[in-house]
Every structure is written in C-alpha cells, then in structure tokens.
C-alpha cells in the first residue's frame, strides 16, 4: 500500500463519522420530495418520533445505565399537555415546550424517590410509577378519562409541517446526545454506569447527575409525545401511557446499540419501519416477536446493530491488513 492511499484512507475513515450523519439528514429532509405519498411520509414521521424517544432513553439507560421501564409517562404527559396547550390557542413551539416542561417536572417527582434504588429495583419501581400514572389518567375527567382527548385543529392539516417538526426535534435530540457524550456530564454518566460507588469516591454526585439525565431524557420524550399528538389529533391513555410504549422506547436503543450515539437512531429506524409490517402481518404475535428479538440480541450481540457493524468493520480491516502484508 502506498503512503498516498494510506493517507486518503485515513482521511476517509475520519470523514465517515461526520459525513454519514449529514448524508442521512439530507436523505431524511429530502424524503417527502421523492414522492413517497402521504402514507410513506406518515411512516417516516412516526419513525422520527421514535428516534427522539430512543435517543432520549439512551441518555439515561445507555450512558448512565439506569434502565427505566417508565418512559411512557413522559411521552404521555408530553402528548396530553401539548394537546391541551394547542387547544388553549398557544403556538406549536410553545406547546411543545410546555409538553417538555411537564415531562421534566414529572421526571423530578419520579426520580427523587426512585434514584435511591439501584439496578433492578430502580427498573421495577419505574414500572410501578408508569402503571400508576396510566390508571390515574384513565380516570381523570378533565382529559376525558379512558375515552381520550381530542385536539381541535385550527386551519388546514399540513402533513409536511408535522414531518419537519418531527425531523427538527429528532435532530435536536441527536445533537443533545452527541454533546452529552463528549461533555464532562457524559463522563460522569458513564462513570456511574460502570461503578456508582467509585464515581462518588472520585467526586461525582450520582444522585444529582442521574436526576439531570432523567430530566433531559424526559424533556425530549415529552416533546416527542407532543409532536405525535399534533399529528394524531386524538390521544387516549392506553395509547400514549401504555406499557407497550415504555417497552418500545427501551427496545429501540437495545436493537441499535445501547450506550452509543448512533445505535438508538439506527434501532429506531429499524423498529419504525419493521413495526408496522409486523403489526399488519402478525397482529397477535408481534409482541412475542419483540420479546424473542430482545432475548436474541442480549444473548448474542449486546452491542446491537452498531456492535455488529463494528465487528464486521474490524474483521474486514484485519483481513485487508493481512492482505497488504502478505
């Protein structure tokens, strides 16, 4: 191998981490222009909402290792409070911010008691809280209880507006994730995941750090719920607070690669597109399929799609490296 090709290869491998996301963003942004039809745009819209929640969950569950089964609380509260704000005549961005703020408030109320627990105890507590919130919301009269809440849309329905709102929020989520991963805060999160006591012995305040990560994740998940509501125009407790929402939000980063920046994005893209097909093809069986998928990933490739890709790249490199030497 000559020096020139070695240098250009090195430059290419440095450019990929920057170029690939930008290319993905360009494709996503241009997607509606490619004539996919309203149903194609709807599918990608929903997928982008999932990307946001998946990236958000990963901030707490991936970076900090705090596995929560309760993210439907933030999704649902974001959805309801955004819907109520829109109905009160507030702007869309303001309503989304209100949705995020309500979710953050909830995250603090949930985090203060539950972050005193560790590992599986924390996970179990989040299931309890999530179910409690769903039951309460099913019985609250102001929001229509079990029969749901309707958004009275003013003006004409504009699908592209919703699509680009979802894309913007997803981009913000990924940007937050990249920033956190590279920050001092991100270092503290990973230290907590690896050994909470050792992190504390070195000056990290684990409780406060986890609470902050929870709040940040809740804000993004709440906004995602709000984006979804704006589009769906009708929400009901089982739909946005359901346990299956919590499981889906946790499943996506695991499929893609937990604890990485891009794994949750990839996982959400896979889940978003496959989910509809699975529901349509196996309406009775799709949850069983997810369960089996989860077991397979955890057993054979805990790094998810990104972990698998990394292995393939390393394998290919070692092969080509050997080829150059022989």
């Amino acid at each position, binding site marked *: 191998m000559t020096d020139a090709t070695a240098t250009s290869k090195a430059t290419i491998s440095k450019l990929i981490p920057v170029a690939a996301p930008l290319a993905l963003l360009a494709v996503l942004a241009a997607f509606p222009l490619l004539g996919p039809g309203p149903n194609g745009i709807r599918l990608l819209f929903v997928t982008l909402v999932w990307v946001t929640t998946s990236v958000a969950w990963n901030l707490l569950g991936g970076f900090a290792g705090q596995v929560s089964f309760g993210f439907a609380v933030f999704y649902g509260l974001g959805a309801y409070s955004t819907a109520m704000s829109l109905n009160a005549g507030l702007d869309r961005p303001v309503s989304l911010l209100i949705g995020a703020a309500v979710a953050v408030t909830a995250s603090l109320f949930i985090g203060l008691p539950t972050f005193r627990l560790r590992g599986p105890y924390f996970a179990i507590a989040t299931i309890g809280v999530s179910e409690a919130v769903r039951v309460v919301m099913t019985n609250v009269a102001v929001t229509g209880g079990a029969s749901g809440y309707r958004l009275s849309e003013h003006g004409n329905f504009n699908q592209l507006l919703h699509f680009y709102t979802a894309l913007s929020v997803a981009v913000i989520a990924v940007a937050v994730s990249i920033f956190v991963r590279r920050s001092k805060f991100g270092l503290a999160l*990973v*230290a907590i995941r*690896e050994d909470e006591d050792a992190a504390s*012995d*070195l000056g990290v305040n684990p409780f406060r750090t986890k609470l902050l990560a929870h709040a940040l994740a809740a804000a993004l998940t709440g906004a995602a719920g709000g984006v979804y509501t704006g589009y769906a125009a009708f929400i009901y407790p089982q739909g946005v607070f359901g346990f299956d929402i919590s499981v889906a939000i946790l499943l996506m980063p695991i499929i893609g690669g937990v604890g990485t920046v891009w794994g949750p994005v990839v996982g959400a893209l896979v889940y978003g597109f496959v989910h509809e097909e699975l529901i349509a093809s196996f309406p009775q069986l799709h949850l069983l399929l997810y369960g089996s998928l989860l077991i397979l990933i955890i057993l054979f490739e805990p790094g998810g799609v990104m972990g698998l890709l990394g292995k393939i790249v390393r394998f290919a490199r070692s092969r080509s490296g050997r080829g150059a030497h022989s």
Partner: protein
Amino acid sequence: MAPILRLDRISKNFAGLAALKDVSFEVEEGGLFGLIGPNGAGKTTLLSVIAGSQAPSSGSITFRGRDFTGARSFRAVRSGIARTHQVPKPFRSLSVLENVEVGYRFGCDDRSASASKDAAQVLEWVGIGHLKQLPASRLSVGDLKRLELARTLAARPKLLLCDEVCSGLTETEAASVLRLLGEIRGAGTTILYVEHNLRAIMSICDRVIVMNYGQKLAEGPPEAMQNDPSVIEAYIGKAASI
C-alpha cells in the same frame, strides 16, 4: 503541626455487629500513617467511614478544623479526602486516561490546585502512562492497582487513604508502589495507609495505629509497635500458645 484529621470516638454498627467501637486518633499533616490489624479488625470500615462511603453510627470526624461527620463521599473527596479501594473498582469501558479524568475533573473543588499534575501527568507518575489509550478492562491486576491510585491522586487529595495498595502484587511491584507512596508524601500529601502486610508498613510509616476487633489496640512508632506484646498477641496469639 496541627492534626489534619481527628477521629473522636467513632463507632459503626452493622445491625447487631459492632465493626468499629470508640476509635479515636489524630493524623498529623504531612505524615505517613499506617493502620494495621488482622483480618476483620475494621480497617477498611474505618477507611470507608472517613471517606464518607459509610456514615458512622456515632462519634465525630474533623478534617482541617471542619466537622466532616457523615459527609457523603463525593463531598469528602472534593474537600480533599480521597480513597483507593482494596479491590480496584475501574470504569471498565472507559480508557485508562478517561478513568483518571473522572478524578481530575470532579474530584477537586480547590481551583488553586489546578496548577498541579493533570490526568496524563498523573499516569506517567504512577508508571502507566504508556497504557492511557487502553480500555481499563484490559489491564493486569498490578496496573489496575496503579490506575486506582492514579485516579485518586488526580483528585489532588490533601489526605490520601490507601487500602492495601500492595496486596496481590509481586515483591518488585510492591516495592515500586511503596516508593511511589513515599514520593506522594514528599509532594505534600498526608497518607493514611491501611495494610495487612506488616513488613510493607513498617518500612515506610512514621507512626502506626494497630486495630483489633473494631477497636484501637495501640499507637506509636513502627519499631515500638513491632515489639508491643498486645500487638504480637493480636497477630499471632499469646506466646504461650505457640
């Protein structure tokens, strides 16, 4: 010199078990203190109580003139009390350098201390600078012990609590770690060194506290402790029973 650390009648109970009972002593600033005792004497528990990993059941801890009783460990380390663990607790997925960065970036409140060694320099100091890009999961036991020490030093402690930094090391490795402790002390850090191995501690400490069954048994210069009948009894039993 004024004591940097004062323990006053520290007790720690785990349910019905008294792990520490009325332990009192003072640590002079700038010294290298040994804390010895047989297995189960309460040495590590005492270290955990001083470092804030566990709250004492009663008694008080004064550090640099301020009451530190029951301070949480992240507060203790930011104020200058840092500990190592007997069994290293590395952040396995992080690189060696990142491990030390945690201590460097979170472990010290004192801005004026920032002029001292940064994370990479600390790694060079303890002798694992060449490993800084490796994930901590790939380190040998000896290097993990050094990483544990490096991380703690990066927090720029005024009082360093070392828990058996030599256990599990070969003789040569242990000797170089002991030399390092001497250097750390030379750089102005007070050290409280818990050790099971008597020989290690006698060679470098200027004062030794002996513990047994959660209580302070004796305190004094190493030579005196080596010949103290109660210390000998605690370690190897009564002379008559040999």
